[in-house]
């Protein structure tokens, strides 16, 4: 490639220009031959490009034909500063001056020195959100904090990285460059829902002891009731936070509703009224880290949490949602023909709803784009039907339209799933409602219909939607409703085994499994897309993990693709040499497939409650036939444990040459408080002890 060094005079002038322009030297010149130059763009003329390559004293002239493109790095606030002393930033200076010594946090990946999230709400429904973080890297894992991603809705919001820099322990400041900034679409694979974008950037010169300092601003100029932000903060994170602020400023006259929970003495709240704005400020100091525990409840329920929104009512939101739904409920001939093809003449409302639902999820594919990440205004049902695909909101509007076409009362329900925490009813804001289902009002009661999976049978409700609150919306009304929690019997897995043991120690097993509720959904999902041979191999792998000399003799999955009938699994297998010889007279073995574990209750005590999202039951029954010439020497002891949250019983009985093992585990409650944990732990450990039991058979004759 032909490049030219320019004359001393020209170079001097250009360098001067470059200095005057005061741009950081992080522009990148991409050449036709695939090579790159980092430095500073000085000039583009008709014939050539003048570029000061990093590390060189003189600019280089590149013929334009040799350059494919140039990417410019933006000048951000404070980018000129080379050391922290040159930054005019009182917050940063204060924070740096009061940094705690590293030995105070020997076990933390990073420490947040300062965090600010500030919402400035406009009269027009627009707002500005400014987020600043100042963090110190303490250990290797803390370096990951130097890559930052923030999302925004392109076309509705703008995102600006105001500044992002690394401050070395010696005070050197290194700004980010735009070559390490990527703006990309989060849902590029779903073009119809492609609105959420992510700006991601990586900071330079990160090492243990570095301080990361960045600020991102998201701006929305105007919005409707669906765009009102829910201003939230959790004042505890997985690593310590020394100072955190949530600030909400609204024009005078805009009442702010707030919900706070679990706030300790380290959080202060102030409210200030200025001439034009009211400002609420929550300030937390010295927030200790959260150490994760298994089965923790949603963070908003157990950690210091604040949520603020401008005043509105669920009725206001419902009215807007009704209008949006109403304008989406169109039907066309194709949709009517689809409904007619599924609904038999004379069918009851329940039969019509069932027939439509059990085909609908297979016909219209679910696209996992949560409404708040795209829109709360469903697209016309006919569009979704044509696409044969939609997110939960669009699928819900379509299903409502189809059910209505079949003369079934149906409504859209915007749900706050229990897995996201409880609905904060005192802070009405649609952004708490992150997924949509449908409610069908039938003569025998209301049925909620989930849209995220084609293996859900009519009447089954995925666990995340159970025990939840939602906003039920029709074109003319709305109300907050409860989504039910299933009884344990509606969430059950039952297994029966018929087992024969031979005198050679071989064991043959016939196993029959039946399911209800989420267990049935999971099992269908596990198998539905596999070929027979793939299922067979998976089963063989499972058997061999239990016992190397295993043989899958046969298996059958009944009603796998028929949602009108229950799923049933029958498997027969042989475990050669399963029982172990103990001397000449004993055969010993453990119960096959009894692999209960107490891993989930390994901790001796808990800081936080344990939480589950469904009740449930599982039962196992085994009939084990002893070979001729043997008697039962030992057949396990009985076990029993009961707590308000869960209970377990297991019995071994011997009747002649048959050992019967029966167990039942029932989860009645969804929560175990720390004070109740010891009992719960004992219950689970009781169950796990069964997995350590052995059956001992003793030879009594040569037969």
């Amino acid at each position, binding site marked *: 490639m032909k490049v030219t060094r320019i004359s001393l005079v020209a170079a001097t002038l250009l360098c001067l*220009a470059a200095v005057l*322009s005061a741009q950081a030297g992080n522009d*990148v010149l991409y*050449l036709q*031959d*695939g090579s*790159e130059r980092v430095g500073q*763009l000085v*000039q*583009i003329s*008709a014939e050539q490009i003048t570029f000061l390559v990093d*590390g060189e004293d003189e600019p280089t002239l590149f013929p334009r034909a040799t*350059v*494919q*493109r140039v*990417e*410019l790095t*933006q000048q951000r606030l404070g980018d000129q500063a080379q050391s922290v002393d040159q930054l005019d930033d009182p917050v940063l200076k204060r924070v740096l001056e009061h940094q705690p010594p590293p030995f105070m946090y020997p076990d933390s990946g990073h420490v947040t020195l300062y965090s600010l999230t500030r919402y400035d709400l406009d009269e027009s429904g627009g707002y500005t959100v400014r987020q600043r973080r100042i963090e110190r890297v303490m250990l290797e894992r803390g370096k*990951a904090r130097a890559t930052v991603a923030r999302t925004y809705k392109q076309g509705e919001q*703008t995102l600006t990285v105001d500044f992002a820099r690394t401050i070395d322990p010696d005070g050197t400041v290194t700004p980010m460059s735009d070559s390490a900034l*990527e703006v990309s*679409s989060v849902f*590029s694979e*779903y*073009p*119809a829902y*492609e609105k959420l974008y992510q700006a*991601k950037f990586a900071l*330079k010169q*990160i090492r243990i002891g570095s301080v990361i300092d960045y600020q991102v601003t998201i701006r929305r100029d105007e919005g409707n009731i669906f765009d009102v932000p829910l201003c939230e903060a959790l004042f505890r994170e997985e690593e310590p936070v020394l100072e955190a602020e949530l600030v909400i400023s609204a024009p005078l006259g805009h009442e702010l509703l707030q919900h706070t929970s679990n706030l300790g003495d380290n959080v202060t709240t102030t409210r200030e009224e200025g001439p034009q704005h009211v400002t609420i400020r929550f300030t937390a100091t010295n927030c200790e880290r959260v*150490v994760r525990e*298994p089965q923790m409840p949603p963070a908003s329920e157990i950690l210091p949490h604040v949520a603020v929104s401008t005043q509105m009512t669920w009725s206001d939101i419902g009215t807007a949602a009704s209008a949006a739904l109403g304008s989406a409920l169109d039907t066309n001939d194709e949709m009517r023909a689809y409904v007619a093809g599924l609904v038999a003449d004379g069918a009851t409302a329940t039969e019509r709803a069932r027939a439509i639902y059990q085909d609908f999820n*297979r016909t219209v*594919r679910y696209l996992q784009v949560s409404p708040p990440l795209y829109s709360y205004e469903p697209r016309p049902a006919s569009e979704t039907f*044509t*696409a*044969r*695909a939609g997110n939960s909101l669009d699928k819900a509007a379509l299903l409502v339209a189809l059910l209505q076409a079949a003369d079934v009362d149906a409504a859209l329900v915007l749900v706050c799933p229990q897995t996201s925490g409880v609905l904060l009813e005192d802070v009405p804001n649609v952004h708490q409602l992150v997924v949509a289902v449908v409610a069908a009002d039938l003569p025998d009661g209301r049925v909620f219909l989930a849209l995220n999976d084609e293996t859900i049978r009519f009447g089954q409700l995925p666990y995340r939607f159970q025990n939840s609150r939602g906003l039920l919306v029709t074109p003319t009304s709305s109300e907050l409703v409860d989504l039910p929690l299933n009884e344990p019997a509606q969430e059950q897995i039952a297994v029966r085994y018929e087992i024969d043991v031979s005198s050679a120690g071989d064991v043959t097993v016939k196993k029959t499994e039946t399911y209800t509720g989420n267990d049935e959904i999971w099992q269908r999902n596990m198998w*539905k*897309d596999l*070929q027979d041979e*793939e299922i067979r*191999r998976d089963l*063989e*792998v499972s058997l061999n*993990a239990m*016992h*190397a*000399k295993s043989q899958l003799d046969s298996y059958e999955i009944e009603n796998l693709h028929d949602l009108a009938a229950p799923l049933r699994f029958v498997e027969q297998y042989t475990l050669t040499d399963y029982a172990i010889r*103990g*001397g000449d007279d004993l055969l010993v073995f453990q119960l096959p497939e009894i692999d209960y574990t*107490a891993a989930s209750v*390994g901790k*001796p005590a808990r800081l936080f409650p344990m939480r589950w999202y469904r009740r449930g039951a599982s039962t196992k029954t085994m009939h084990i036939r002893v070979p001729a010439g043997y008697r039962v*020497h030992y057949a396990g002891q009985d076990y029993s444990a009961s707590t308000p949250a869960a209970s377990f019983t297991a019995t071994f009985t011997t009747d002649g040459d048959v050992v019967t093992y029966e167990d039942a585990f029932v989860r009645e409650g969804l929560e175990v408080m720390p004070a109740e944990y010891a009992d719960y732990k004992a219950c689970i450990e009781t169950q796990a*002890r069964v997995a*350590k*039991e*052995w059956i*001992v058979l003793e030879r009594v004759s040569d037969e």
Partner: protein
Amino acid sequence: MFVRRFLRSTLLLAGLSWIPIAAGHTVELTDGTRIETESVQYRDAVLVLDGGREVPRDQVRKVIFSQGVLGASSTDELSRGADVGELLEQADRMRAEYPDVGAAVLIDDGEFTLRPDGTQLQRSHMALLVLKEPWKAAAQISQYYEEGRSRARLLLARAIGPDGTIHEFDPGELREVKPSSGMEFFSRNKTLSGQVPQVEIGSIIETIWEVETYNPYDPELFYPRWYFGSTEPVAMSRLTISVPEERELYYETGNFVDSAAAEPRQWTEGEYDTRVYQWELRDIAPVIREPGMPPVGQVVPSVVASLHSTWDYLFDFLGRFQREHVQVTPEIEAQVHEIVGDLTEPEEQLAAIYYWLQREVRYISIKGSLGSGLSGHPAALTLKNKYGDCIDKAILFATMLKVVGIKSEPIIVATNDLPADDRSLPTLYGNHAFNEVELNGRTFHLDCTGTAWRYPSYPLNDHGVSTINVLERKIGHTETPPPEENELLIDLNMRLEADGTLKVILKLEPNGNFEAIGRMMLDQVNSMLRRTVAQQAINALCPGAELKKLEVGDESDLTTQLTATLKIVLPEYPTFAGDLMIFEMPLARAMKSLAAIAALDQRDYDIQSPTVFSLRQHIQLDLPAGYVPRGLPEPVELSTPFADYSANYEYADGKVVFNDNLELTHRVIESREYPELKQFVENCTDFIKHPLLLTKTGSES
């Protein structure tokens, strides 16, 4: 990771009109707005466009300069696609033959064309019969292209219903997007994306895409690669490669059962006297996956092609970038001297630099062009940024070693989880880079990409792969370290009380990848969480387990072997079965589960492990007074060409001592060796599964 430079026709397939090549220059603003302009000048931090329009620098993201319109456009006529009747017949036939597959590929037709002017055209025609839910995702169509280099065009996209109804994709719905990548990846590629409507079970999704590389980096970089078949059955798969007649095309085929089919049809055609090579296979059965099998691309028929028969051109092409990037600067020199300090032994210096690069240069991958894609950034820039990806780190490592006089070059590989390539044909195939080092007469490999490898170990996916050493102009391979260099040593010192309480001191001494994985896990969790994880693990061994002590070495100190010691109390550990005490060795269940690898009755494919390993246990069990073992299993010595296992029990003075050693000695176990493996596994587990049966002294009957 650098960019894989081959195009495979898959379901990612582009507009009924080309994304236009700007006749002039393109200016992209920070808000995403794009301005086409004939004139572009820049001075005093202001961009001046057509009509004197001025745009301040701080509003400009990039300027893409026009290269003029290169290359001849393909036909402007849209394709009508395949005959619908024939497609439906094919669909019926495939459905009948493969009733439970998720999808069937009816047409998989790829064309790669090198034009006389050096531009390239790739066309991909796909027809897919959707038979199960996940395959509806094939309705989401997209095609990558590189702005300023290539453009994509969708010639046809439609869904054909089971009844023959045709639903055309609306080209107005094609979107030009920049897809997200992982947190560490910063790329510039864009896609054209859309969604074919009305796709249901039984639908056929048919698409035809073209990608024209109108501004190639180098016309010689033309490397078609094609796989015939996959985990779905294929009715017809065809590869057509066209090059100017005066150019030689070199190709290699793999896994063709019918040697005649491996030979392409050849003819000359068209206005440019194009030489055409074509391979076609029909009715390809699906690959049914087997545990531990090689990557699918390694077992299905394949073709790879190149314009060169030797590596010289690529060595020259890549060497130019690499030499430019491997340049010692004063800053690099100073950094190296700081790292090695007073160390004088070259191996110590090497290890010190190896550790520093792993821990102090953060993994961030920034790819803006072929140069950074294949040969990273200059060493000085990576050092300045203290971030980079595999090739950036490899470049910097080689440069730093230069400072201390140790010879090292970056090498390019395809890791062993990708289809293997013996490099007999020069291509740019690869996904990773690390270093070849020569020291004390020995050549070996080190990989600075991660953060956890103690010298001289390096990641398991680098083992046993072919290497491209551009600077040395040689093709080679990496070694697989012996099992003892990838070993987990487990030492259990246990005392059993008469009431069943088992007191255990467990020491773990890993090396190689075991050690690195341990470090990586420890790097990610704090001490409280480590304790929680340990408590969960031991409570899985025995309910009610109590963790008395957990001591773990310093995971950040790569100079010292990582070890862990746990003191555990397991209440009621054995099972009291009448007068018997049944004692299962604590890790027996985990060891038994290894048998899953030999689950199938028979195999079609080899078992390919990323590397070899050794698992060694030494257990000493002090029995309670009055108890003795009721017979002990006989010692075993099992040896095969690919794995060995030895184990024995000894009893004396109230102590049972157990030793075993499982070694996988070869990465690949051929399918013909599978019966021997199965027997080996069964014999191993027969031994492992035996619990100790303990009886009180004198009570034996």
